[in-house]
């Protein structure tokens, strides 16, 4: 089984799909030189400047043009560089891409993938660090994906590239260099969670970078005799309710952990759904942990204060087991 980085896995997925489908193209700032994180390196050489398109710093036009290009028969892959910058194109994503199919009564679809790198990374401060995945889950029409491993980044991106819906594809900046095994290079269906660790005492639901913290916490908890099940949601809309509900019915305890601000984060949706659907299975109150509702600071000690870590997940789990 080959080992590769999270960035390389996405690149290979995109390259494979571009070889298979000549209507797929990518557009964004600095893509010709490999993209700001190198996730497109070498692609302009293979596919040429017509399909790996360098654009102006012009987010609204990048996404707006992608909407038009999707409607007119191509499959654009939009690189937004940082999820924070995608806010310059929120009309294009929310009012245009997400709405066109519905408000035109199914006369068109808008098959595009918007890559929006999220998360805290190397003291990037308030405008380059946000995790805004829950915003997009609120918008009918959008699919929201948050891969956490190289294998998932390959398989989920392949699925996103074949999807006829606009997909908000949120890679975590801190995971670009993460190495991992990529099994059979096949696509992974959107909307299906992965139970990364089975356990009988409590269910920890997470995604993206925080999933790795959840796994570390589960190992530590295991040494203390607490058997945690860890679910990596992978896709936030649609999210795999069946996997979560089945797990909670088994363990009777739920902890949701994410890097995004806890208030109105996607954890709230998961918790509410479990309360509505599986209340009688619960043996303890539900816990969710996310960032406090403050912008992300620059200085590392302050930044660290906001992180959801394996330690904070572990302590919350221990409280649930009391």
């Amino acid at each position, binding site marked *: 089984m080959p080992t590769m980085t999270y960035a390389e896995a996405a690149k290979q997925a995109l390259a494979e799909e571009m070889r298979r489908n000549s*209507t797929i*193209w990518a557009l964004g700032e600095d893509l010709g030189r490999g993209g700001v994180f190198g996730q497109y390196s070498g692609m302009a050489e293979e596919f040429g400047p*017509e*399909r790996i398109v360098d*654009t*102006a710093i*012009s987010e*609204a*036009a990048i996404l*707006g*043009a*992608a*909407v*038009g*290009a*999707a*409607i*007119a*028969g*191509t499959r*654009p892959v939009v690189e937004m560089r940082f999820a924070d910058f995608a806010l310059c194109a929120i*009309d*294009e994503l929310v*009012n*245009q891409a997400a709405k*066109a*199919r*519905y*408000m*035109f*009564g*199914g*006369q*068109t*679809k808008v098959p595009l993938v918007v890559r929006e790198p999220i998360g805290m990374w190397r003291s990037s401060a308030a405008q380059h660090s946000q995790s805004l995945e829950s915003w997009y889950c609120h918008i*009918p*029409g*959008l*699919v929201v994906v948050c891969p956490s491993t190289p294998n998932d980044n390959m398989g989920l991106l392949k699925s996103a590239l074949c*999807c*006829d*819906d606009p*997909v908000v594809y949120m890679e975590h900046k801190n995971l670009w260099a993460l190495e991992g095994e990529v099994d059979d290079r096949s696509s992974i269906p*959107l*909307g299906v969670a992965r139970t990364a660790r089975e356990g009988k005492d409590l269910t920890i639901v997470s995604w993206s970078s925080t999933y790795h913290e959840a796994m570390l916490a589960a190992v530590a908890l295991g040494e203390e005799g607490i058997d945690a099940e860890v679910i990596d949601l992978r896709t936030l*809309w*649609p999210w795999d*309710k069946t996997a979560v509900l089945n797990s909670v019915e088994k363990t009777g305890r739920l902890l949701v952990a994410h890097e995004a601000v806890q208030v109105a984060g996607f954890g709230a949706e998961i918790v509410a*759904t479990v309360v*509505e*659907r599986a209340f009688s299975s619960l043996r303890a109150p539900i816990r969710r942990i996310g960032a406090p509702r403050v912008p992300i600071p620059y200085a590392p000690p302050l930044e660290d204060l906001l992180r959801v870590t394996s330690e904070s997940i572990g302590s919350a789990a221990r409280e649930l087991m009391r």
Partner: protein
Amino acid sequence: MTQVLDIDRLLKHHLLMCRIRAFEEAALQANTENLVLGAIHPSIGQEAVASGICLNLQAEDLLTSTHRGHGHTLAKGADPRAMMRELLGREGGNSHGKGGSMHIADFSVGMLGANGVVGANIHIAAGAAHAIKLLKEQRIVCSIFGDGAINRGPFLEGLNWAVVFHLPVLFVCEDNGFASTTRTSAVTGGQGAATRAESLGVATTTVDGNDLTEVDRIARSVMPSIRQGKGPHMIVARTYRLVGHTAADPDLYRPRDEVEKAWKRDPIARLRKVLRQADVDLAILEHHELNARQEMAGAFAEAKAAPWPPLPRAFEDVQDIGDPRQEAF
């Protein structure tokens, strides 16, 4: 210089302009009868822009339009019966009654949608043209927007995009002088649309948008270079909406004499004068008007009698993955 008039062509324009006017009047009537509940933005007075531009497009060409898009949509060839049903929110509307007036669209004739967000159709048009270029197709895209759009980012970003990638787009600034109910000149720095477009490298032609013969002539003259891949062009067509911003707008912000004066430049009356001077029989022109009225009255009557969309339509065409019909909770 005396120009030889192509009477058949002008008659086509005349009929189309009468049809647009009649459609808008029928829509206003529907509004009066409380059958159109959402906002409608009639284009009465701006028919020469819709007709003069769109009759110069080919069937396979694409069009993006604005919230004031009925005229453009009809001019691109859409069926007014389906459009009227859409305005009334009925089954059989272009979008099954899910979009209404502000999102009127008919993809079967290349009309990619009116847009409720001012200026948003500009870079969508640039992107459609980008796809055309990638797919090596021959067609072009036309994007019609109002002068209110030139103070939004997409005007800058979309025009810049079309220039940088040499895209086949005809931009049309349908300049009726008002951004919603505010005079555009009062909120616009510099010289406005044409100067801004020129500064981006988009060749621009300004035309009297109430003079059909001129709009038609200019539109026809700029098409070849766009089709030959020489990049975008913009037409600024100066016009005036002869009625309120929406059907509900009492239009109190414009002096009455200004509006009355504008009616003397009614583009349909002006075209009719041209045709009469060319000895076209008045009966033909009156016949156009009568036919148009009958057609649109028929469309309105049919729409009134049409059923509401079946309720499951509310949940259709949201998305494939995460379809609300499977994601009920």
